[in-house]
């Protein structure tokens, strides 16, 4: 090997790209999409009785032109709801809520889900860049710990 670089991803994308990453990521953790932009009223009602945790995604920007003010995506698993939205600063934000869970537990669930969403976002970003530069993916594997490994030639 010649060099090793470790990179923390920045999520900079329009709402449709983020929605696609969320949709692709949730299946592996057993979540399913509840509703899109029309969900806020329902969530506000249920939030009164549920524990709620928030996960701010500092390294993110949801592009303004692609996100309407009410853009939200709600996913659910066993009574735990995760609401993806764009906060006032334009960053991605997750609210996790559910009955019978501690705040710390909900935060952990949110962070795990965010990791998978980020993984999906990065995967599609990398693959599209490789295609644009005519680099060839010669091997692609998903390890037992769900790490995605891509080998590239034609440099």
């Amino acid at each position, binding site marked *: 090997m010649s*060099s090793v670089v*470790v990179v923390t991803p920045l999520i900079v994308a329009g709402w449709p790209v983020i929605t696609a990453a969320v949709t692709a990521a949730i299946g592996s953790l057993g979540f399913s999409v509840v509703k899109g932009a029309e969900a806020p009223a329902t969530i506000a009602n249920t939030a009164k009785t549920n524990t709620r945790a928030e996960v701010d995604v500092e390294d993110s920007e949801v592009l303004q032109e692609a996100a309407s003010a009410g853009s939200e995506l709600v996913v659910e698993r066993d009574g735990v709801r995760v609401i993806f939205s764009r906060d006032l600063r334009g960053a991605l934000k997750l609210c996790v809520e559910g009955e019978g869970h501690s705040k710390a537990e909900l935060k952990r669930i949110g962070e795990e889900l965010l990791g998978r969403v980020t993984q999906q976002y990065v995967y599609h970003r990398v693959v599209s860049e490789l295609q644009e530069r005519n680099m060839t993916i010669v091997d692609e594997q998903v390890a037992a710990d769900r790490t995605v490994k891509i080998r590239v030639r034609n*440099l």
Partner: protein
Amino acid sequence: MAQEEIEIEIAPNGQVTVRTIGIKGPVCMDYADLFAQIIGREEHREKTAEYYETAEQQVQRHVDVKQRR
């Protein structure tokens, strides 16, 4: 001569590790820079023994990488 490759690992938490394989000399850093720019913020960089080797094609590869940007 070893096949020139880039290995990209995307962890379940989203963190990315990019390894250049078989690319001798400082030109490997151009590829590392390229992927760091595409993906996000560089956290750590390590030069391996191969970095310090030389190759005749090194200069040409350097030009190629710059042209692809």
